[in-house]
């Protein structure tokens, strides 16, 4: 048995990578597109920080991420897909909502229409 194993291993170097035996994911080189996907996602996070994924803006942040990926990888992404991708890098449950919310909604402000709504249109 051992001899066979040895042979197999020696044979490995002579054979193409496609015939590499299965091993743990981390030791295998990732598919190029997978790498690119993750790279784009991480780039997108510069505009759409994960910290905002728990606040009131979360749906629009997600929208932004979906759009970014769609544009850079030229295919549609569902919200779930994006969330799953993010889940690999962040523990989404542990995210704390941003402080920004306090600034937007902390104080009550009476509603007011912009002046130009009152002007007569021609």
């Amino acid at each position, binding site marked *: 048995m051992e001899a066979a194993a040895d042979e197999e291993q020696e044979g490995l170097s002579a054979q193409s990578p496609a015939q590499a035996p299965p091993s743990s994911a981390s030791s295998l080189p990732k598919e190029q597109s997978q790498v690119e996907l993750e790279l784009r996602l991480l780039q997108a996070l510069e505009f*759409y*920080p994960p*910290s905002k994924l728990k606040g*009131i803006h979360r749906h629009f942040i997600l929208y932004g991420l979906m*759009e970014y990926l769609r544009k850079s990888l030229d295919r549609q*992404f569902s*919200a779930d897909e994006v969330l799953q991708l993010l889940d690999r890098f962040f523990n989404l449950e542990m995210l704390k909502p941003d402080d*920004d919310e306090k600034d937007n909604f902390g104080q009550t402000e*009476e509603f007011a229409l912009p002046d130009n709504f009152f002007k007569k249109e021609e």
Partner: protein
Amino acid sequence: MGGSSNTTTTTSGGAGGKDKDRDRAKGSSVSFTEGEKVLAYHGPLLYEAKVQKTENREDEWRYFVHYLGWNKNWDEWVASDRLLKLTEENVRKQLELKNQSGDKTVRTGGRSAQHNPKGSNADAKGDKEDTKGLVKGKKRKNQLGVEVAMIPKHEKERRSSESLLMSQFPVTLKKQLVDDWEFVTQLGKLVKLPRSPTVDDILTKYLEYRVKKDNKISDSCAEVTKGLRCYFDKALPAMLLYKKEQKQYKEEIKGDVSPSTVYGAEHLLRLFVKLPELLSSVNMEEDALNKLQQKLLDILKFLQKNQVHFFLSAYDGDSKGADGAKGK
């Protein structure tokens, strides 16, 4: 550098289009006098200022300036490299710099000015502002840790007026909002609650309409309507009500009830007016923002199409008898 500039520092050699640093020529022979009105650099922009005091220290002139229209707290000592003579050409430069800074939040230094965020309907604020559209206020750090000014009301108005959404806001819906304003603020009436259809119903109907039209479910559309619902629930009590509606709100919305299940099209429409302001926190990429605004406009058109069914044509007198209201 040691050019023959008697009057202004910018005229020598026609200095258009170069980096602003060249204006701050060291060893410039320009000097200013007490009481003189000048243009002074504060950060990347120029502001009208007045020289209060002058001082010569180690053969260098320094000027204590007061920024016109600004709190005295901002007064400071500056060297001549921060000042420009108040000429037409320099004023044009001031305008140019202001336009270049565009819609981005203007970074400011210095101490915090007095700023009253609880603006009233009018644009009047505690701290007077320069008519050229300065954006100074409390210092605050944004998510990148960069100090930015808290956005005063007129800046919010400017953003709103520059947004695609606002510029293409359907006219009949604008009129709807004006009528709404008149009913509530001028005639003392209120929208009768609960409404049907509710905001929730309307957003759901919109999705159904889109699915029918496109023959597929758009994930991004769904996300947008979820986002609007989310905004509505938080924004309604905070910024979508007229003062006269506060009482009704407290009576109708108790405990965990979501405003989007009680209020209807009248208040949803008000949310759209606030969207440019709300979305500015998201800091979206330009392309994505444009696409989003197209979607939002599509929703408005949907509201317009169904205006008769979604909106009330008349409001109730306040049935609980508020101060001097006409009961009915």
